[in-house]
């Protein structure tokens, strides 16, 4: 059922992608999202020339970004948001699978135009890139179903193997939490993708995985995964903002996306997309 729902939503998202390139000013074709010509004009020339904004993402973070059943299409809140932003800007905005922990370097190198991968907007990262915040979430602890190690909070993680994705705020959080495990440290293992970290937990090599709250909740409730995973608690640790990252030398794109996001928030499209993916708790007000 859920899968069918996801597929339907994917279709909607795909339709959202296609519309702007087909007809410049046909708001009705994309759920009422109209092109803002001024914003389009404000885009960097290379974007206008290619007509595409390429966001890098690690698609292993349902429901934010994840691979569909075909193994190739990326679906979730993030691609839908990108599509809607593209509609406002009059370009195509797409998500490309890549490495999370190298993504900021990749955009600095110009490999991609931005990062849209549930990335927390942190002070440290702001040194490398500019952010347009679009979501708010804290970190959750995921354990095996049944919670065999009896984890209820960070203090219980001491002495256990904890896995997480490389370069995430969760990896940083774990490092910082290590201080609380005097003489009884956690074994922190980081992986290229979040999926790899979950494999460790699923196979029992790790006792817990740290994720942002929305994907963690999704894992604990989705029919395909809830048999293996559950949340250690409902607490969200260190709530923070997710931001789309842009290269420091690309303020025009950053500003255009910020303006487009504001437009989506004002028009209610943003809220609707949050509802579609069941992540309304992560809503932010106009930036």
């Amino acid at each position, binding site marked *: 059922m859920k899968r069918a729902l996801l597929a339907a939503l994917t279709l909607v998202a795909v339709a959202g992608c296609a519309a702007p390139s087909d007809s410049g000013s046909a708001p009705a074709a994309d759920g009422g999202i109209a092109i803002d010509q001024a914003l389009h004009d404000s885009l960097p020339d290379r974007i206008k020339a290619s007509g595409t904004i390429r966001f890098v993402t*690690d*698609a*292993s973070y349902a429901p934010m970004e*994840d*691979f*569909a*059943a*075909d*193994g*190739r299409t990326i679906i979730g809140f993030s691609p839908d948001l990108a599509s809607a932003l593209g509609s406002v800007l009059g370009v195509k905005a797409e998500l490309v*699978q890549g490495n999370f922990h190298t993504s900021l370097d990749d955009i600095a190198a110009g490999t991609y135009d931005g990062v849209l991968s549930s990335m927390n907007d942190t002070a440290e990262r702001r040194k490398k890139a500019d952010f347009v915040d679009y979501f708010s979430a804290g970190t959750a602890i995921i354990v095996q179903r049944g919670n065999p190690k009896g984890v209820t909070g960070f203090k219980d993680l001491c002495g256990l193997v904890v896995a997480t994705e490389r370069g995430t705020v969760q990896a940083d959080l774990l490092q910082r939490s290590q201080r609380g495990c005097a003489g009884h440290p956690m074994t922190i293992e980081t992986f*290229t*993708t*979040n*999926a*790899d970290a*979950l*494999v460790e937990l699923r196979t029992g090599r790790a006792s817990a995985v740290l994720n942002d709250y929305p994907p963690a909740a999704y894992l604990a409730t989705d029919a395909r995964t809830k048999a293996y995973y559950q949340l250690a608690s409902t607490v969200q640790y260190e709530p923070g903002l997710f931001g789309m990252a842009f290269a420091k030398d690309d303020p025009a794109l950053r500003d255009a996306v910020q303006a487009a996001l504001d437009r989506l928030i004002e028009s209610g499209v943003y809220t609707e997309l949050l509802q579609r993916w069941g992540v309304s708790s992560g809503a932010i007000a106009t930036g």
Partner: protein
Amino acid sequence: MWRAGKNRSGARTSARLFAAYAVASLVPIGALGALMVHGTTEDAARWGRDQGRAQAAVIAEMTVAPALGGGDLSQGLTAEQRERLQHSTDLAIYNDSVLRLRVRDFAGRVVFSDDGTTAGGVSITDPAFVSASAGQTEASLLSAPELPGGQVIRVLQPIMASATGQSVGVLELYLPYAQIAARLHQQMTQTYWRLGGGLGVLYLVLALISWSTTRSLRRYAQRQAHEALHDALTGLPNRAAFHERAREAVAQPGEPGAIVLVDLDRFKEVNDTLGHHAGDELLGVVAGRLRDGLRPADTLARLGGDEFALILPRSDAGTVRRLLDELSAALAHEVVLDGVPLSIEASFGVALYPEHGRDVEELLRRADAAMYHGKRGASDIVVYAGEEMAAHSTQWLVVQAELRHALARDELVLHYQPKVDLRSGEVASVEALVRWQHPQRGLLPPSEFLPAAEQSGLIEPLTAWVLRRALADQAHWTSTGRCWSVSVNVSARNLEKPGFAEFVAGLVAEYGTSPGQLLLEVTETALAADARRAAQTVVDLSSRGIGISVDDFGTGFTGMSQLLGLPIAEVKIDRTFVADVLDSPQSQAIVRAVIALAHGLGSRVTAEGVETADVAYWLRRAGCDEAQGYLYSRPVPWLEIPMYEITGAAS
């Protein structure tokens, strides 16, 4: 022989029916078998594909994906990836667990194959490749004549190289089918045997059911057919069967034969007096005697009631006559029913074919006519002799119907012919003669309708009517001073009817007439027909004072002995003797003898048909008592009969 033929053809029909059932049920059985075999084959193929798919999934997840370790295939494989893949697939290839393995990117490029070549592989436009590119696993059975088993399973499935579920390319895998095929073959063989056995048993059961059904149907049909064509009482062929066989017999070219109708005389009385069971028994006896007297090729049928019919094929008129004489004689033997001895008499009406026609209906009509002709006459075996006979019988039906209405509507009238005393010349008595004032045909003499009435039982109401009217008229004329007695003709059937004497006596009393004033005229042949019954009635009537007159005396074959001892009041000499009494010495002798005989028995003698005064004179001289004829008066309404003395000379 007929029956045997019928049975054989019945058995043939039922065998055909059974064969039809067998063939018809073979079709659904065959269809069912084909469907089940097809289903099993389908299942086997699906099972084969599923096996292949499952095997491919394991290979992809346990061999290929770990070897690739994620990464983008479009960039080609690293040396390390290639070596890992090679290493992990070699053993499977060596053991023939996998026949061929290719790793392809979405553009179709072969980035790895077990034999190192980049050539070959499924086209990227192939639906299976397209489908695998879109995340679906596609397995299919391909023919591979060069391989053992002749088939190979090809599986195309997406390579989900990492836990993210990202598909990086398409795995093209060829798996041996021989082992699966062998197992499938074994299973199929088993299934075929079971299926064949099961369907065979099913077919056998169906066949048994249909065999038993057709058999009981055939028996039922035979019984029905027999009942439809046979009379339940005697077991003889019935009217329908008779018609069928008669048609067959008549249709034989160049073979003369006869259709004979047999009707028992006075069967109704047996039924009425002894009861229906006696009647049924009598019919059984008659049927038996007739059957015994017939030849094997002849057919005896009961058409209904006391009416039987015979088909006598391959017989000329003489043969038919001889045969019927024998039958008649055989029937005449006395039979005792309920302790009552009876003599059976039957009338035979014969129509010969092709002489009298080739149409069964026509032959039957003619035989019928002949039979009724016989019933009226003296002969019990009558061969059809022309349209006159036929005309009678058909006309009779009309007449009988009309006569019924005539009685109801009072269309009958009585005329009277006086009998004159030859010595005094006075009217001594009158004979009542019935006439029918027919609305279309005018005034009809009795000869036009009496024979028909005689045969139909209408004679009884008719006689009753005549008696009432005559007695009523007599009362009238007596009141006007005429003291004529009245004569009424009664038929043999009247005399044979039990209780007739009482009935007449009752009427006489009802009209206040003196019994001596009523005379019943009976034909000589009526007295002869069933002497016992008629004689008893005559005795009963006489004992009640009612006179009996023997009509038409001399024409029948009444033995003198039959009249002996009967109280006969009057003997009427038939007109044939009277007509030529002046010229024929024989007639003179007969008339004289009759007069002498009648007087000797104490009877009065009346001469009929007196037309001339000379004859009247001769008769008076010969000692005749009374005379009747046109010389005196035609039959007229009684008011027109002169009261005064009439003589031939006077008129």
